[in-house]
């Protein structure tokens, strides 16, 4: 009996503590929600007030531009195949920029990722500095490097390729090193015991373990880099982005060309996107976080 009373008192005790706890938490969550909403609303209001057109006024005109483009494209649809052929080389250039920079970035990222993974790194004091370098490579938007390089090297695909490759080194270097951290050291030690040198230990002991994940990340990067390379075209780095910008900013009269270029670009992006996600699904299962770190 006394026991029951005691336990009842204990339950009451738990109740009060829990209630206090839950109320604090509720209040906290509520405040957080309000703060977030206030930030979002006032942020939007600021953005709108610093914008030329207002949100509500503009909403009605949202389809004007696509409609203008569409009507012109339909009107001169017979020219479309010609444009597709005409701009195909530019598309190839854009894809080449993406492919070459992904390849370069992945190769460099592979080496650097091995150099910054504890347990694999031959020179331990280099790990910290190299990691910072990767961080910086990742932080600089491609367009910044591209613009600076265009200044030095002139327009064309090379600045874009270098810019994207540098960014890719940063992004893939980090992802690869995360993959490396989950790789087993046992095979590496096994190879070390036979007298294998660093290169052999890495190529034969590590790469076979991590290759599928590497490949999957590299494919995803390729997808992203196609977009990046098209965008860099906008600032004069060649490829299809450059043509798209020129025709788009000409406006009425060349919208049909712009539409054709857009179709080419969009088609390519969707194609690569689909193919790569198919391949990636095959390479790794449980790719929950793959897209996350990009």
């Amino acid at each position, binding site marked *: 009996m006394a026991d029951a009373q005691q336990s009842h008192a204990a339950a009451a005790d738990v109740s009060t503590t829990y209630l206090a706890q839950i109320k604090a938490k509720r209040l906290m969550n509520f405040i957080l929600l309000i703060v977030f909403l206030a930030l979002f609303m006032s942020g939007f209001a600021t953005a709108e007030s610093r914008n030329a057109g207002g949100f509500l*006024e503009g909403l009605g*005109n949202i389809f004007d531009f696509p409609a203008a483009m569409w009507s012109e494209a339909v009107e001169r649809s017979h020219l479309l195949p010609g444009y597709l052929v005409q701009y195909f080389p530019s598309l190839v250039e854009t894809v080449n920029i993406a492919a070459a920079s992904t390849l370069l970035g992945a190769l460099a990222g592979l080496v650097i990722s091995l150099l910054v993974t504890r347990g694999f790194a031959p020179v331990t004091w280099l790990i910290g500095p190299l990691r910072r370098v990767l961080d910086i490579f990742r932080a600089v938007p491609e367009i910044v490097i591209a613009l600076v390089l265009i200044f030095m090297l002139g327009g064309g695909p090379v600045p874009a390729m270098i810019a994207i490759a540098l960014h890719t080194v940063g992004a893939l270097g980090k992802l690869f090193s995360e993959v490396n951290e989950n790789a087993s050291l046992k095979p590496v030690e096994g190879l070390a015991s036979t007298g294998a040198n660093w290169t052999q230990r890495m190529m034969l002991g590590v790469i076979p373990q991590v290759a599928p994940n590497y490949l999957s990340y590299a494919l995803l990067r390729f997808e992203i880099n196609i977009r990046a390379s098209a965008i860099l075209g906008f600032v004069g780095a060649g490829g299809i982005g450059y043509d798209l910008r020129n025709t*788009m900013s000409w406006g009425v009269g060349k919208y049909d060309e712009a539409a054709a270029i857009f179709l080419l670009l969009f088609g390519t992006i969707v194609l690569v996107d689909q193919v790569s996600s198919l391949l990636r699904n095959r390479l790794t299962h449980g790719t929950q976080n793959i897209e996350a770190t990009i």
Partner: protein
Amino acid sequence: QDTAITEFRIGILGGENAQDRMNSNECLRSSIEEALGVPTKIFAPADYNGVIQGLLGGSIDLSLMGPSSYAAVHIADESAVSPILVKVNSDGSTGYYSIGFARIDSGVTSLEGLKGKVFGFGDPNSTSGYLIPSIEIPQITGASMDNGDYFGEVKFTGGHEQTIVAVNNGDVAAGVTWADGQGNWEDGYNFGALRKAVDAGLVDMNDLVEIWRSKLIPGEPVVLRNALPDDVRATVTQIIDTMGENDPACAEAIAGGEVSGFDPITHDAYTSIVAARLAESN
């Protein structure tokens, strides 16, 4: 038509630094704000297209723009805007020229010397940087502007400043930009992109040589959105029209060089430009 507006928005373009542009147009902004009594803002997008889209979509009310850009707006929507005023040069003339130029040490002195070389346009929406030369130059060379037809390659540099820098650096063999054609070559003429580049210390005109000059191009119009209430249109027109007398410093700041002021103009002055632009379109 609206009876009242809540805001007035000016779109500006040109090669300078965005912030510098905003600063030089500040005097215009404040006088319009004072006269209309509504908040007035300046927007400086990175390229012509931003202002063109703004005028078409109704989010930009006023702009001083190149004839070709005006023509682009007019072609897209005849009723969107009309030209109200035009810049008057200090000698009283209006209009300007597209000037072809090259580095003096390249030995090129005329279009003939450019066969097979790289030629630079500015922005595809620029009148003097693209539209006019792309029509007049083929008449001289007798060949199209396509890559490899006469010139080895034809590039868009992105704008007047970029063209001047590109020619000066040798990135392109020759390029086109605009100038009033008055005054000394060494100074980059009295005004225009070359003069600005000289004043900014970007180039030394002694390093460059003029190789081609277009026919006179009608001057840059001030365009105003038609949907604005009549009283707003009248007030704004009045402010800029009298700017030359009331505030010459401001007039020069917004025009980007020595001017005597602004004079009324109508669409008729630009029919040839519209025709040229239509000819260039598909």
